[in-house]
């Protein structure tokens, strides 16, 4: 599995940078709200000192707001921590639901982001031996690209289904795919190919699909080049 370390190239570093920047932006917003609300409490104290009556509700709203923002900050730091640790082991067994959940949370820090609805898996746990970091990058780019082209009002539905026993099929739907049929871009294609993920573009059903192999052990020995098949001939072509 040492060969897996070679999977991390400049593009994945760029992804790491992009996500880190969006997290820092989120934390700055949190700090700005806490700073302004604390400042407002100071202003209200000054007013009270001059004998001006201050409504208790106003003080309560300020303290509630500060507590909520601190919780938001903690939650962001938790996501940041999960993300940072995703490079600890290049290839590991992951629960795809957890990987998707983290990626959705990370993508929500972008101003272009809309809503996402991740359907629960019933009767199975989608475990795959893969590179969690690169898988996150592929999911993230898919969400970002979709929201960028459909607008923040979109709600993307995501579901996971088992296929023939060799892969998990992840479907992204709920948007008009014909508006941006050029997805995936070259970088996402290359990232997907490096861990054997096949991306399907089905413009007739307005869906993006991904087949994530249950294991990438064979790919560690025989790496593959990127190729994006259509949904129709998916069974005969592997990226």
């Amino acid at each position, binding site marked *: 599995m040492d060969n897996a370390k070679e999977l991390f190239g400049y593009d994945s570093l760029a992804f790491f940078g992009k996500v880190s920047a969006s997290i820092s932006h989120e934390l*700055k917003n949190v700090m*700005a*709200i806490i700073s*302004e609300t604390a400042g407002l409490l100071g*202003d209200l104290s000054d007013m009270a000192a001059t004998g001006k009556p201050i409504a208790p509700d106003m003080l309560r709203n*300020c303290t509630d707001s500060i507590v909520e923002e601190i919780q938001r900050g903690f939650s962001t730091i938790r996501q940041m921590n999960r993300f940072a640790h995703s490079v600890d082991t290049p290839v590991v067994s992951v629960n795809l639901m957890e990987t998707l959940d983290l990626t959705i949370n990370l993508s929500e820090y972008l101003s272009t982001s809309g809503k996402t609805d991740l359907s629960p898996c019933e009767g199975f746990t989608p475990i795959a031996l893969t590179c969690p970091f690169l898988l996150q990058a592929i999911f993230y780019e898919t969400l970002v690209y979709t929201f960028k082209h459909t607008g923040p009002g979109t709600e993307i539905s995501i579901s996971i289904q088992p296929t023939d026993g060799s892969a998990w099929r992840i479907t992204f739907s709920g948007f008009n795919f014909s508006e941006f049929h050029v997805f995936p871009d070259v970088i996402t294609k290359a990232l997907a190919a490096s861990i054997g993920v096949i991306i399907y573009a089905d413009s007739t059903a307005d869906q993006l699909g991904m087949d994530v192999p249950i294991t990438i052990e064979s790919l560690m020995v025989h790496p593959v080049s990127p190729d994006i098949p259509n949904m129709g001939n998916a069974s005969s072509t592997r990226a």
Partner: protein
Amino acid sequence: METENTIKILLVDDEVKFLKAISERLSIKGFDVTTATNGDDAIDAANKGGFDVAVVDLQMPGTDGAQVLKILKKNHQFIEIIMLTGHATVDSAVECTKLGAFKYLEKPYDFDKLVESLKEAYQARLQKKFESNLKRMEAIQKMSLHQSPLGLLREMAKLDDKRK
């Protein structure tokens, strides 16, 4: 409580809590504050408004801060705009300056610095208006030498159209 000479401010940010806290603080300082949580609402408010200064967050869903800056500067000759961002880069600072932003502040910033920037922006707006009025007066004086009273009124109307 300090009182300013009722400077009319349009505050634009998609972070509702931030908007609420900062508008309260500026109101306590005596500013007349109107808020908008997205770019389109900000443009609508400015069209109704008559604001002296706008404080606009750069990153917002939909119509972003740079687009708001561009549209407000195009439609409102004298408005001054302060850009706020949680993600300052040299490129975005240069872009905002080129589009006519008065100042570019990074979050979290010092509140007193914002207040100071608002006053400076207001002074700059007054100066611009003064210079524009001066030019108008000079133009009217020149025209009055060659025009009938009715012709003079027509030319003045044309001048006012240009100033909008």
